[in-house]
Structure formats: structure tokens, C-alpha cells
């Protein structure tokens, strides 16, 4: 077979994982990690110009193009951030060189798994990829070996495996539904084929399948009531992993969900997936919004805000229609950029203050202006205040929904408001007020954080037409 960009996107991380597993010295490994991530990103960008033909196992279309580029980009910036973060962790001896080596290898494996999940043209393959991604993240969450970390990892592990099992059952059912139409063998697990024939599938089977997939992949998306693993995993793992989890892994799971939603949307006889998704989205959004108030741990708080935003996104896709889908895609992109940037800031904050308990943080804008204002900017963005990107998507979601389902829109608006209240309640004591904790200067790489903010800011007032048309195509695909 010919070696093209798609394979590259998979092979670069795999190869570098292998190399990183043996390379000594964290500086070297960290830099190598960055380089590898950059390479992956560049190759993925190249997909926009030369789209390789999609085979039985890999495919590339408008939908996953968006996802893959976003993923590789955030992966790259995160690797830059992680370089400085891990450096500090080694200094204070929270991580041993061995575990760092393991960490970097795992990082690349995770990249590989996520990329595979995104470009897999085969539902079975996709499932495997997501499972691998889960296992790697489990290991990385537990990397600190503290009581809390292990517990979080364990919780994540158990809930994740159940989710995966459900998802697998769903996948099998989809195959069962496809087989009579397409025939036995690998053909009836291939997206490109499934999509063409979906209309003739057996509807009840497809419904059951979707229920299982919704719950299975929904667990990874972090929809309430399946979210339980998410806050702890975010809070106890290394911050770069929190960033990747919130910024990428959730998206990947969401991507899988969207694929199957497309399948159902193509089948007239099946139940409309919309109502299910809208309900779960709304529930997650409201629930997370309320949960924000009582948080004592800054990373856990932002984890809950991720749940809230995933809720909004799922809600948007559930509503469907070109406007809502566009909004959903936009929101997803903006959220992963913003949230990962926030975690960059939070990571440095937690390192310099030596704690992530909100009660012990205070007056950051005074002690560390750049970090502090960075955090403020991030919260402003994530709370959906203009002129940053998320405002536009929330504007579209709410206003387009209000014309169709006034009550749902009102509820959603309420949830957004409550969430904003919770976020700013905490922000007030973290970023402002009297200064607490150490005031020593932090040697951090602000580039990734502000790069993200810059993108989000620009997107809030100007979206390049190329991107718009791309999103519109995808929105149409999602029906």
C-alpha cells in the first residue's frame, strides 16, 4: 500500500511512542514529544489540500477533517505546555524520570489512539481505538500514585470499561442491522458503505443499538448521569492530561456519537435521536451548572464546566438543523481551545501556589498578573461572554432554539446563567481579593495559552469564510 498523510498521522505518534519509551532524560524526551506532535499536526493540516482516498479502514471527510486538525493542534500546544509543566514536576520530585518516560510514551500512544478513532472507517476499529485511548488515560491519571490519583483512576477505569462494553454491544447491533442489507464480512462495518445503505436497515435494531452507543460513548463524553469519572480524573491527573481529556478525548467520543447519529438520521423508520440527545444534553448542562457552586478544587470545577459545555454541544446537535449544528461544531471547537488554555493556566497556578484548593488561592491578578488575567480571560470566554468565540455559538444555539422550542431555550439560557454565576463566584476569590500563597515568579510557557486565547478571540468576531463553508458542509452532513 502507498504511504500517505493518513497513515502518517497514525504512524508518527506510534513510532515516536516507541522511541520515547527508550529515550532517557526528560528534556530530550519532552522536546522530542513536542516535535512529534508538531509533525503530526502539520501532516494533518496537509489533509486539507491532499485528501487521500478513504479505504476500508481509514477515511477522511469534512467531518473528521475538522476534528483531526483540532485534535492534533491542541495535542501540539499541550505538548509544549507539558514540557514546562513536567520540568517543574521533576524539580519538586513529584514524578520520577522513569514515570516521565512512561508518561511521554503514553502521551504519544494516546495521540495515536485518538487519531485512529477519528479517521477509522470501521466502527469496530473505532471502538478499539477509543478503548485504547481510555486505557492510556487511565494509566496517566493514576501516574502520581497518590491515594486520590489511584482512586480517581480506578473510578475512571471501572466506569469507563462498562461504558466501553455497552458501546461494543451497540457496535455489534449495528453490524447485525447492517448485515442483512450489506452482507457478511468487513464491508458491513465500514462507514462509507453503511452510510449509503443506512436507509434500508432494520429500524428497531438500530434504535437499540443507538441506545447502547449513546450510553457507551456518552460515558466518555461525560454526559450526566454517566459523568462520575470525569471530575476526579481531571482533578487528580497531571494537568496536561486534564487539558487533553477536556479538550480532545471528550470530542473524540462525541465524534463517534455524531457518526452514529448520522446513521440514524439517514434511516426514516428509526426513532429520531434528537430528543434523546437534547434531553441528556440539557440534563448535563443544568446539573453541571449547579455542581459548579460547591467546588473546592479548581481543576474539578473546570471539569464540571466541561460537562456543562458538552451538554450544550450535545443539545445543539440534538436540536439539529443547519444553524444549530453549525453552532454545535463552533462551540465544540471553541470549547476545546478555551478549556485546554484554561487548564494550561490552572496547571501553572497550581504549581506556583503548590495547591489546587480554591480556598488557598487568592489575588492572583496581583501576585501573578499574567497568569491571573489569563485565567480571568479564560473564565470570561468559557462563561460565554463576548467578544470571545463561545458567545457566538451560544447566541446561535439559544436564539435559533427559542424560535422552535421556547421552553428548552429558556432552560438552556437559565443553565448558562447559573453556570456563569458559579464560575465567577469562584473566580472572584481566586483571581481577586487579598493575595494568598507564594508570590515567587513562575517560569511558564505562556505561548500555548495565549495562542489559544488569540484564536478564540478572533473567532469571536471574525470567522474566515473557508472555515465557515467547511462547517456548513459538515452541518449539512449532520442533517
Amino acid at each position: 500500500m502507498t504511504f500517505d498523510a493518513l497513515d502518517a498521522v497514525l504512524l508518527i505518534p506510534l513510532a515516536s511512542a516507541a522511541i520515547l519509551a527508550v529515550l532517557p532524560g526528560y528534556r530530550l524526551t519532552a522536546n522530542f514529544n513536542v516535535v512529534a506532535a508538531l509533525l503530526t499536526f502539520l501532516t494533518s493540516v496537509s489533509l486539507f489540500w491532499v485528501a487521500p482516498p478513504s479505504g476500508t479502514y481509514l477515511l477522511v471527510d469534512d467531518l473528521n477533517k475538522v476534528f483531526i486538525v483540532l485534535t492534533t493542534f491542541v495535542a501540539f500546544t499541550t505538548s509544549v505546555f507539558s514540557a514546562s509543566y513536567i520540568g517543574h514536576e521533576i524539580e519538586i520530585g513529584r514524578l520520577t524520570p522513569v514515570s516521565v518516560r512512561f508518561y511521554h510514551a503514553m502521551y504519544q500512544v494516546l495521540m495515536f489512539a485518538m487519531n485512529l478513532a477519528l479517521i477509522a472507517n470501521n466502527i469496530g476499529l473505532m471502538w478499539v481505538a477509543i478503548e485504547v485511548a481510555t486505557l492510556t488515560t487511565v494509566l496517566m491519571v493514576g501516574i502520581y500514585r497518590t491515594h486520590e490519583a489511584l482512586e480517581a483512576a480506578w473510578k475512571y477505569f471501572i466506569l469507563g470499561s462498562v461504558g466501553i462494553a455497552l458501546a461494543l454491544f451497540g457496535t455489534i447491533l449495528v453490524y447485525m442491522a447492517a448485515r442483512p442489507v450489506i452482507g457478511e464480512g468487513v464491508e458491513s462495518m465500514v462507514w462509507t458503505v453503511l452510510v449509503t445503505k443506512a436507509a434500508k436497515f432494520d429500524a428497531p435494531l438500530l434504535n437499540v443499538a443507538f441506545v447502547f452507543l449513546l450510553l457507551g460513548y456518552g460515558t466518555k463524553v461525560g454526559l450526566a448521569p454517566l459523568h462520575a469519572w470525569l471530575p476526579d480524573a481531571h482533578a487528580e491527573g497531571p494537568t496536561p492530561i486534564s487539558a487533553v481529556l477536556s479538550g480532545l478525548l471528550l470530542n473524540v467520543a462525541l465524534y463517534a456519537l455524531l457518526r452514529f447519529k448520522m446513521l440514524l438520521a439517514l434511516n426514516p423508520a428509526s426513532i429520531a435521536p434528537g430528543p434523546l440527545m437534547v434531553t441528556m444534553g440539557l440534563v448535563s448542562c443544568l446539573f453541571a451548572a449547579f455542581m459548579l457552586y460547591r467546588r473546592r478544587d479548581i481543576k474539578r470545577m473546570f471539569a464540571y464546566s466541561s460537562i456543562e459545555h458538552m451538554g450544550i454541544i450535545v443539545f445543539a446537535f440534538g436540536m439539529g438543523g443547519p444553524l444549530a449544528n453549525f453552532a454545535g461544531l463552533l462551540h465544540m471547537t471553541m470549547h476545546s481551545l478555551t478549556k485546554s488554555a484554561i487548564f494550561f493556566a490552572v496547571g501553572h497556578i497550581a504549581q506556583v501556589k503548590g495547591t489546587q484548593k480554591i480556598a488557598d488561592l487568592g489575588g492572583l491578578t496581583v501576585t501573578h498578573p499574567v497568569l491571573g488575567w489569563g485565567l480571568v480571560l479564560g473564565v470570561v470566554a468559557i462563561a460565554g461572554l463576548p467578544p470571545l468565540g463561545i458567545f457566538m455559538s451560544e447566541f446561535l444555539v439559544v436564539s435559533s432554539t427559542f424560535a422552535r422550542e421556547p421552553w428548552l431555550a429558556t432552560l438552556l439560557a437559565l443553565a448558562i446563567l447559573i453556570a456563569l454565576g458559579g464560575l465567577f463566584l469562584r473566580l472572584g476569590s481566586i483571581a481577586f481579593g487579598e493575595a494568598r500563597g507564594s508570590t515567587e515568579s513562575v517560569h511558564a510557557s505562556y505561548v500555548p495559552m495565549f495562542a489559544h486565547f488569540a484564536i478564540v478571540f478572533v473567532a469571536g468576531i471574525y470567522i474566515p469564510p473557508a472555515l465557515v463553508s467547511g462547517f456548513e458542509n459538515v452541518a449539512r452532513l449532520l442533517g
Partner: protein
Amino acid sequence: MVVYALFGVLALVALAPVAIALGASSPATNTVYGASFIVTLALCVIALLALFGHPGPAPAVVLPLGLPWLGAHFRIDALSAFFLVVINLGGAAASLYALGYGRHENFPQRVLPFYPAYLAGMNLVVLAGDAFSFLVSWEFMSLSSWALVISHHEDRENLRAGYVYLLMASFGTLALLLAFGLLAGAGGNYTFEAMRAAHPSAGLAALVLVLALVGAGSKAGVVPLHAWLPLAHPAAPSHVSGLMSGVMTKVAVYGFIRIVFDLLGTPDWWWSLLVLFIGGATAVLGVLYALMQRDLKRVLAYSTIENIGIVFAALGLALAFKASGMTFAAALAFTAALLHVFNHSLFKNLLFCGAGAVLVATGERDMEKLGGLIHRMPQTAFVFLIGATAISALPPLNGFVSEWLTFQAILLSPQLPSWGLKLMVPAVGALLALSAALAGACFVRAFGISFLGRPRSQAAIAAQETDVNSLTAMYFLAALCLVAGILPGLFIDALAPVAQIGVGGHMPVQTGVEWLSIVPIAESRSSYNGLLVFVFVAMSGVLAAFAIHRLASDRLRRSAAWDCGYPDPSPLTQYSAGSFAQPIRRVFGTLLFRAREIGEMPPPSSTRPARLTVNMHDPIWDTLYVPISRFIDYATDRMNVLQFLTIRRYLTLVFVALVLLLLVLAIWP
């Protein structure tokens, strides 16, 4: 026009990064405020040109920003032009004032970057020509002002104020968002032109009106959505407080007018009852709150609420007339509202500047620690007095003119077709009259306690007159107050095109009337001539003085105060802010604020001083906001349990969800 205006806004926006770059360095203050002074002045000129320039459809500029398939629309019609004047006049004055005031700022780097951004935001709201850019600028304005409110965040109170403010602001924005969502419909056509073209059904229109009232009202400080205002406005630096109270509330009024009068067409008449009632209630409650405060800046903030109430009452009146097809009367009420908007922006800005000067000179906002400042800072006292007279709606200053016009509009109510309005309008008139009288009392108290009498604290004794820039700004505003008071005709005529947009008609031209008096309807009916009143009062006063000094005596001796023979040297024996308000508190507060006086007398033998404590409750806070926060607390506590379950329980949740969904499938038709 629009292009130039946008360039001005761009300049303001560009100023923010400059301020960040300059940081806390000494030239930063002068650069930022100086530049924003110039730019706002330029913008003001542009706006005036647009206002007096050619009437007719305003050309729109569409930038490839905002919603991709829509673009960002900007244009200046008469309505926006008028509000641009208000904004930039206030902005220029505030900037000039800040050239002096800003020097005393401890953390300039916390104020400077946001100040120009705030001005830019307010300008953009008025310029915006589609829902999206409107809301973006609206929320941007709130955000930047929030940053200014918490600029002194070492004080917990300010932080809380900022928090409440941001919440209410976002609440309002969401309400407006829903209103626009209704107007735009499912098609998502967010340009104002399209909304104007679409005529929503009566019920829909009513809903939009309510949403607009909630959204814009929460920003303007309409009762019961005012709770944030008295917290946030005083917390900001004084020139910003002036802008927030004097200008930003007006931007909110603009939002209301734009949606309800321009985009919505004419809703049914009974919705004007709502606006009327809320306006009247806001006016009275606002001023009563103001009378109960002892923090000077908070008094001013509450009086803003009162004036907003007057504006909204007038707008409700205009709405009623418009719905009844009485274009002419509608124009009268509408003009009254706009004129009051303009006037209030002048004197409220002036008063906050004065309060700021006092704050700088004494470091005190508490009136109980002020007093006798008229000796230390005579000029500030003079301009503050003018502001106080104007805001108390006393002739010959400008506050009176707009109230007079409002009353004239109220007197047209018998011609209204519906009995509900026939009876409602005079009642609202009574509320307005009451609020006007109380405003007088409020500002006798504010000025008398803090500037007159004998100093109540060391700080007040040591006060110094404020600097030239601040004084210039204040004199400028004071002069405008006087001009607007004695030559109202000019301003009324200038408002004609605006009224044309708002209600499709305008008041008769005033500049033609002899002796420059104003005649809203007919001379036989009512007329007022500020100029002559002013001249007469001045003349007869001077005449009397001259005659007496000439013919009788002009000798004068200084001696101790008489005070019925028992003068007491201690300044504590003066009437304080609290004691001044006591009679009114007894009359109104007992019912409204559940004000209770608890006097505790020491037993005969003890030497303890007797003390009197007054405790009051804010009815609205107690009945509206406390329950909400209680509910949030309750809900969060209940839900928070879900953070502490065991893995098995979480699994149970998954299991239950699965079973439920399967059941749904099982019973699915």
C-alpha cells in the same frame, strides 16, 4: 458619518492595549484620558452633525465581522445620533475630569485599559445595526464596566458588587437575546431592517416587550431589577460611576426604545400600563431608598434609579398615546423622556464628579463624616449645588423642563380612549410628583449634610479644593445644565427627528415662539419660559439687594451662632444625615422598609450612653433575591451529594439510565 464614528471607536479600542503597555507608568493616565477626551469630543461632533444633518434613511456599513453569513451592520440614524451625543458628551466630561481625578488613583493599571474599552462598548451598542453586534457590544460594555467596578477588589464589598452586577447584566443580556430570537424568528434574520419589516402577532409582540423591559430594565436599574445598581455604581472610580449612572443607564434606555418603539411597531395599549406602573414605582422607590442612605455615592446611585423611573414612566406614556393613535401627544411624552435622558446624563455626571472630588479631598463617602466643605472647597460646592438644584427639578434649571413636559403630557390623558389609562395616568402623575418632591428633600440632605454646617471629622476639616481639570469638567456640565434649562426650545427642536423615528411624529417647532419660551400644545394651554424666569429672579434678587444695601444697611457682624441661646461647640450636635431623614423615614419607611427604631435607655445609675438603633429591610431584596439565592443554595447542596457517591452507586446510575432507555424503546410505538 458611520465610518468616521467607527474609526473613533476603533481608536478607543486601540487605546486599551496602549494602556496595558504603559502599565502603571506616570504618563499613562494623561495619555489615556487625554486621548479618550479628544476622541469622545470628535465622536460628539460627528454625532451632532448626524443629528442635525440630512434626515432620511441612514446608510449602513456592513463589515465582514460577527455572524459570517450576516456581517456586522452599523449605521447612525437620528435615534442613535442623539444617544451618541449623550454618551460622548458624558465621556468627554468624564475624561476631562479624570485627567485630574485619575492622578489620585492607586492602581491606574487596573482602570486605564478598561476605560476606553468601556467607552467604545457604549458607542458600539448605539451604532449596531443587527442583533448580534448589538448584543456583543452590549455585553462587552457590561464586561468592561465590570472590570472597572472591581478595580479596587481588595475590598470584598466591591468584589461582591461586581459579582452581582455581572450576574444581573448577563441575565439582562439573555433576556434581550430571547427577545431578538423572537423578533428574528426561526430563519435567524438578525438585521434590524428585517425585524422592522416583520410584524409579529400581538401576543408575540407583548412577550417581546416584556423581555425587552426585563433585559434593558435590568441594565437601567428598573425596580425590582435595580439591586445591582446601588452596589456597583459607587464601587467604581468616581468618573466611571458618573458614566455608569449618567450614560450607561441611558444606553439601556436606548435598547428599550430601539426594540419597543422602533423594531416592534405598536403593541396593544394595555402593555403601556405595565411600563407606566413600573416607571412610577421605580421613581418613588428609588428616591426613598436614596433618602435612607448615608453613603454619598450610593445616594446618587439610588437617585439614578428614580430618574430612570421618570424616563420609563414618560416612555410608557408615549407608548400609551402611540397605541391610541395620538401621535402628537406621543411625541410630547417621548420628547419629554429623551430630554430627561439628556438632562439626567448631565447632572448625574456632574454630581458624581463632585462626589469624587469630595472623596479625593477627604477620603470619605460617608456623609456623617463630612460637613462644612463649602468653606474648604467653595467651587466644588457651587457646582454640586447647581447639580443638586437641577436634579431636584427646580426652575430655572434643566431638570424642571423635562418634568414639566412630562406633566404636560400627563394632562393630555383625558383624550385617551381606554378608561384604564384615563385613570392610571393621573395616578402615575401623582407618583412622579411625589418622587419630585422627595428628590428635593433628598438633595437638600445630600448637599446640606456634606457641604454645609460644621465639619464632622478631621478629614473634612483638612479638605482641599480639587484640581483645575476636574473643576473645568464640572463647570462645563453645570453650564450645560443652565443652558438646557433656560433655552429648552433648542433642545426640543433638535429632538424632532428622533421623535419622528420613535412615534412617527414630533412636537411643534419651538424656536419660532417669541421670547424663546416653549409651548408644547397651545399658549392658551400651557407655556414656560426658563429664560424669563431666570432673568426675573436674577433681576428682582439683585434689585432687592441693591435697594436694601443702598437705602437700608449693609453692615454685618460675625459672632457665635444663636441657636436659641444654647450653641454647642461640638459638631455632633448638628443634624446628621440620619436625623435629617428621620421624619420622612417615619412617614414612608415604617411601611415600606419595615423601619424600626430601637432606643435603649441605660438604667438610672449607669453612665452608659443611651443609643438609638434603626433597622430597615429592603423589601425587594428580601422578597425576590434572597429566595432565589436560597433556592440555589438548596439545589446545590442537594445535588452536591452526587459528588460523594460510591462507584457502585455511580454504576447504578448508568444501569438505571440504560434500563429506562430500553423501556422507552419497549413502549415506543
